[in-house]
């Protein structure tokens, strides 16, 4: 880590959901720092506030207390510096692949030829050359999620927030995409936060895995991924001899968190 200040930071962040029935504490006094170019995963039982943390980082809503910092500055709303990838591809069915991939640029009013060329190049890089003029309905699920990746990368964000983007895909397509996403982010030097409930995915893709506990959502434990596994592509990492030990360590933590959380209800 050559940069001293973290790319993303949560400082004493709490978040409360308020509704008719009352107010519930979703995230409690969370402290988290993600370095430049680091890839971290958030795992935890349902209701641990994983997606809330991601939404806070994206600036979809402000935290009830504490600070969310991006590059040392408070996050005030969604920005082009942060890309977000959803579980569903959410492509606009009436736009071509090219126009879907360039949606973020259209919204930002970036219509220069150079920008357009970059979209074409990105599409080519994720293996979608030749589909530019097609419509989302003509593509398979895995291809559509590649378009969603391109749409996220096109505005050149510094940070990528990945909200279970592989969970709706078939196993082999999921693993292909894991490799593609990790390789692409590494090449471009992006910082990434992945939310997943797949422990193997978290272990295979990240530099560091953060295990969350629930009721209220908080950090239980951070587990660093050994350098030997970190270097490998996700499909290779899964075959590494020390991968199972890492997976088991995560498994133990997650189970402990689930039991604790359950007793609060």
């Amino acid at each position, binding site marked *: 880590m050559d940069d001293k200040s973290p790319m993303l930071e949560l400082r004493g962040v709490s978040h409360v959901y308020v509704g008719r029935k009352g107010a519930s504490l979703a995230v409690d006094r969370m402290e988290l720092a993600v370095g430049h170019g680091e890839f971290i995963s958030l795992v935890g039982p349902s209701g641990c506030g994983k997606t809330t943390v991601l939404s806070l980082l994206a600036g*979809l809503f402000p935290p009830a207390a504490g600070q969310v910092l991006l590059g040392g500055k408070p996050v005030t709303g*969604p920005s082009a510096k942060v890309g977000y990838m959803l579980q*569903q591809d959410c492509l606009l069915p009436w736009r071509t692949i090219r126009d879907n991939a360039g949606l*973020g640029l259209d919204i930002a009013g970036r219509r220069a030829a150079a920008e357009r060329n970059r979209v074409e190049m990105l599409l080519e890089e994720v293996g979608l050359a030749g589909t530019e003029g097609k419509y989302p*309905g003509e593509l398979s*699920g895995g291809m559509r999620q590649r378009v969603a990746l391109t749409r996220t990368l096109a505005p050149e964000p510094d940070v990528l927030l990945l*909200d279970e983007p592989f969970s709706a895909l078939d196993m082999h397509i999921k693993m292909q995409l894991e490799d593609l996403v990790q390789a692409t982010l590494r090449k471009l030097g992006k910082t990434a936060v992945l939310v997943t409930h797949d422990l193997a995915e978290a272990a295979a893709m990240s530099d560091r895995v953060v295990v969350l506990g629930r009721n209220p959502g908080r950090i239980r434990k951070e587990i660093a991924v050994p350098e030997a596994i970190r270097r490998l592509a996700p499909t290779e990492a899964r075959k590494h001899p020390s991968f199972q030990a890492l997976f088991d360590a995560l498994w133990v933590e997650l189970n402990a968190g689930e039991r604790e959380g359950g007793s609060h209800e």
Partner: protein
Amino acid sequence: MSDDKACHPAGGDKEAASSEDNGGPHGGDDRAGWLKALHAAYRRRERSIGAAVLSVQLLLLAAFVLLWEAAGRLKWIDPLLFSYPTKIAAQLASSSADGTLWPHVGVTVAETAAGFVLGTLIGTALAALLWWFPFVSKVFDPYLVVFNSLPKVALGPIFIVAMGQGFLSILSVTLSMTVIVTTIGIYNRFRDSEPGLVKVVRLLGGTRLQLFRLVILPASFPVIISTLKVNVGLAWVGVIVGEFLVAKEGLGYLIIYGFQVFNFTLVLSTLVVIAATATLMYQGVALLEKKLVSGGREPS
């Protein structure tokens, strides 16, 4: 997050063509010929069903016309009240030959077209307003419900007093029938736009105007066009009723006039003209829909 689930799932591929068990290929080398034969058999089946449906339809129409003609001529029904097809045809032939029919058709078609086009445009604009200002939509919700359940034709006399006997009153009756129902239908579509698509635009930093232009409006386009089709029917009701009340020309006026002079052949022949013109208009809008909504859209 349940809101993401609204988008179509990232998994799933094209469905497989269902197989036909027609004995299978012979020898296995002529797969293309085998597929072609299966396709040809399928097309033949389709065509023969289509032909059967059309012939039954024509038969029913002919039987109805013949029965009506016989009933009228043989005095099973009162020909003064119910007329019969050849009399109606003669009436239509003479009124279209001497040119007395066409001005009435022209007036009514113009009023109806203005009614459904304006009704759809104004309804869509109001729906956009309600979507843009959630507070306004909350405030107006009960009023819309009341106004929608009101029989708007009852407002006719008020329009006549306020706007005089003529085009404006008829248009107002028509708009009162189309605008509210359009507003409610399209506003509901606006509001139910897929949360995932909305989230994507928000995450990319889109403004509310961009959200409307990029997602809400195009996603609702098929509904707007189908509302236009519904409004064709409503506009006809509005225009005919409006003409009953005030007009000195138009097809509704012809019906009232025929009724007053006890010429039911004129009334029925006008109904035939209305049926024909309304069908043509509806088909025209359906054709427009086909042209506008085609493209890369998935069949939904």
